[in-house]
């Protein structure tokens, strides 16, 4: 008995040792690159850190400056607008396409293959391609509008249109990615549910609202959260499509664009750190709200 006990203890110790060893590379990396960076960044946000020299502690000055900056409020407002504009469209369109692709009609594979191409393209290239299409004088979109007898617009420099244009590009790029996730979710719904509903005489609409949506609700919630967090960090398309000094920039600048300009173009690193802290707080709050909502709304099998 005593022998067995020490044996057990020894093996448990060995198990714990192996466990720590196997998570060690991950943990060391996370501590150096994430945890340490998180706190250092937080500290920087209270300093006047620039590109060179030692940062000096300046208390809440960066945050004070931030909350008195029109540019910051504009970037904050733009970012929320991006989220409000893009997320519903991305979710609705990708869900619609997934449902259509899941019908098993002819050519489904062909359609899916082509609709998915934007998802394997880097945002940098997507930005350049759309910058050309949306070009005021020579772009494809305005050419089509002229043929149809409409009024060409300065899509990327007119403050009235620039946020819409960037949003459209983001929606275009993200739909193809999210569609695949929804399609996989749809394929996991047991066919027997639909068959049973058919016997009861349910029509397509009823089947969609009573079976598809509830069964897909965990996926929808998860994808929505991912999309919200992703759009909050929008940067690439703005960076590629709109020059910093463009007349469109004030209406397009997102929080991350603002962060990039301050931290790495103007070298106001401390101020840039404060911007990321605000971004973190917003994303943290939204994640918390989403988790709460999820408990309330998501259908779980019991």
């Amino acid at each position: 008995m005593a022998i067995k006990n020490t044996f057990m203890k020894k093996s448990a110790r060995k198990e714990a040792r192996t466990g720590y060893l196997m998570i060690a590379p991950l943990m060391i990396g996370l501590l150096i690159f994430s945890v340490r960076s998180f706190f250092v960044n937080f500290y920087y946000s209270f300093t006047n850190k620039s590109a060179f020299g030692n940062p000096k502690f300046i208390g809440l000055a960066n945050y004070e400056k931030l909350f008195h900056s029109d540019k910051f409020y504009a970037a904050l407002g733009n970012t929320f607008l991006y989220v409000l504009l893009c997320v519903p469209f991305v979710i609705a369109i990708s869900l619609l396409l997934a449902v259509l692709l899941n019908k098993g009609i002819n050519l489904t594979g062909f359609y899916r293959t082509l609709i998915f191409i934007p998802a394997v393209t880097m945002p940098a290239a997507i930005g350049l391609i759309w910058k050309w299409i949306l070009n005021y004088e020579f772009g494809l979109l305005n050419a089509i509008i002229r043929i149809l007898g409409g009024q060409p617009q300065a899509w990327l420099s007119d403050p009235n249109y620039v946020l819409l244009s960037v949003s459209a590009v983001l929606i275009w790029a993200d739909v193809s990615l999210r569609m695949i996730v929804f399609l996989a979710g749809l394929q996991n719904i047991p066919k027997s549910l639909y068959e049973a509903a058919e016997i009861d005489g349910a029509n397509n609409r009823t089947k969609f609202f009573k079976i598809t949506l509830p069964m897909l609700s965990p996926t929808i919630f998860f994808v929505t959260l991912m999309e919200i967090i992703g759009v909050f960090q929008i940067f690439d398309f703005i960076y590629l499509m709109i020059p910093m000094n463009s007349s469109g920039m004030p209406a397009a600048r997102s929080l991350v664009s603002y962060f990039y300009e301050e931290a790495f173009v103007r070298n106001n690193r401390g101020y840039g750190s404060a911007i990321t802290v605000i971004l973190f707080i917003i994303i943290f709050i939204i994640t918390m709200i989403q988790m709460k909502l999820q408990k309330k709304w998501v259908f779980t099998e019991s």
Partner: protein
Amino acid sequence: MERSQNFSIRKHHIGTHLVLILAVIISIVPFLWMILTSFKTYEESIRIPLTVWPAQWNLINYITVWNKFPFLNFYFNTFFVMVVVIIGELIISSMAAYAFARLNFPFKNAIFIFCLSLMMVPSQIFLIPQYDLMVKAGLNDTLIALILPRLFNVFSVFMLRQFFMTLPRELDDAAKIDGCGFFGIYYQILLPLLKPALVSVAILSGLSTWKDLLWPLIVNNSMEKYTLSAGLALLIGEHTTIYPHVMAGSFLAVWPMILLYFLAQKQFVEGIAFSGIKG
């Protein structure tokens, strides 16, 4: 009665086809326009009314951007970083995932939840300190700077842990009786069974490295150390922009991944779908 039902089903499918065809057109016309423009002369590209087809299909724009920018470096850097990140991340993540799924050690759950909470932090918050770290270590403007911070991915640990948990415990027990240690169980018994999940993680990790723009832009400043994504940012000039050049450069940047996707479509689709699996 039967006839009308048939008709309604067919009509329904016509609508589905129309919507999907519209989606296909919207998805690929930008790419076609990129290709068409890349073969045009500058004069053709700014002609009003616009011309759809290039008068002559010549490669001059490709040759110009190829000579003006170090595309061979861009390709090498992008693929080298991608491959090293994929391999490193798979090793580090799968080991940790196994430990979290199968082994008992003090504070395991607390550590795991702590890792998960890092997923909530927007990555921009790490950038300035990470940049400083790279400069201090003399690693800025190197490929190592592009690789190192990407090796530690909590998301892939989380996904792989889910998959380890679906494998039956009996496998571990049988291996233990045969004298297999914990590491042996991980490496020899469970890991081979996880191949599809590993492929998915590899694709997700490769795609996100492929797409990343901000970090390579910040940490590397000589052109020779740029990835394709960062290199594209160089194509847009300060004052004049010659779009046939920009489109040729864009095509040079996008084709490898699109080709890979055509060759391994099933794995790509499964990989992306994998990212939506929720625990």
